[in-house]
């Protein structure tokens, strides 16, 4: 999976590394901004509702 990604990225090795870091940053940003906030209410350990 990641080996195929590495081969698919264009440019020399240093550029591939930079591209990987950018992709990682984008993935983390999407998770933090949209995915995790939507997921949190569905998880049991986050149930802080006061009776």
């Amino acid at each position, binding site marked *: 999976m990641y080996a195929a990604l590495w081969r698919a990225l264009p440019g020399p090795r240093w550029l591939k590394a930079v591209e990987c870091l950018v992709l990682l940053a984008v993935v*983390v940003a999407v998770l933090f901004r949209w995915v995790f906030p939507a997921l949190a209410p569905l998880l049991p350990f986050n149930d802080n509702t006061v009776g």
Partner: protein
Amino acid sequence: MIRRLVGGVGELLITAGVLVLLFVAWQLWWTDVVADRRQAQIVQALVDDFGAGRASDVGGDAFPDLGQEKAFAVIRVPRFGADYARPVIEGTGRDVLALGVGHYDGSAAPGAVGNFAVAGHRTTYGRPFHDIDRLRAGDRVIVETAPTVYVYEIRSHEIVRPWQTEVIAPVPDQPGKAPTTAMITMTSCHPTYSARFRYVTHGALVKSIPRAQWRAADWMTVEGAR
């Protein structure tokens, strides 16, 4: 072929592990970063409104039917830090508690006879009541509304199960009894990082001060004069 398959499954498992760790980092760290910023903005907006006389007159006997999720007061607790200030927002739903301290629906207005009951997160989402267990009898809690600043003093604390709602009764722990004094009750989760119990702190109103006569230096001390 087999080797590639096993390698692919391994990569997926590692990815899943990293995702779980990222979620923990988001929950325990990033929600604080976002909520601290947001809550500071709300406090600033409230303070500006109060100063300009824009906010509705909340507190004492005047307590208009606020919409859910409306911020109407600022709570200050010197024990939590000289610059500690959090917005008080109507309701105790998940969205409200991410924006500040939640005021239990139907509980008394700030300064009013009865029980001004509020809830706040112990951890995550800005954790406004993280240090609730550091409050001691005599500590001051200051609730600032547009017309009036209310000074409460902590009297006692208790640790109860989440369903013991009598702690926010008009007379705390005596549901059905008619109140004669103005109380404050602060609730949060207990122990830290658990929702198994509730840490509950009760206090009594000691002073109501019109905004024009409010002198922060006289009242913003950890403990009241005893």
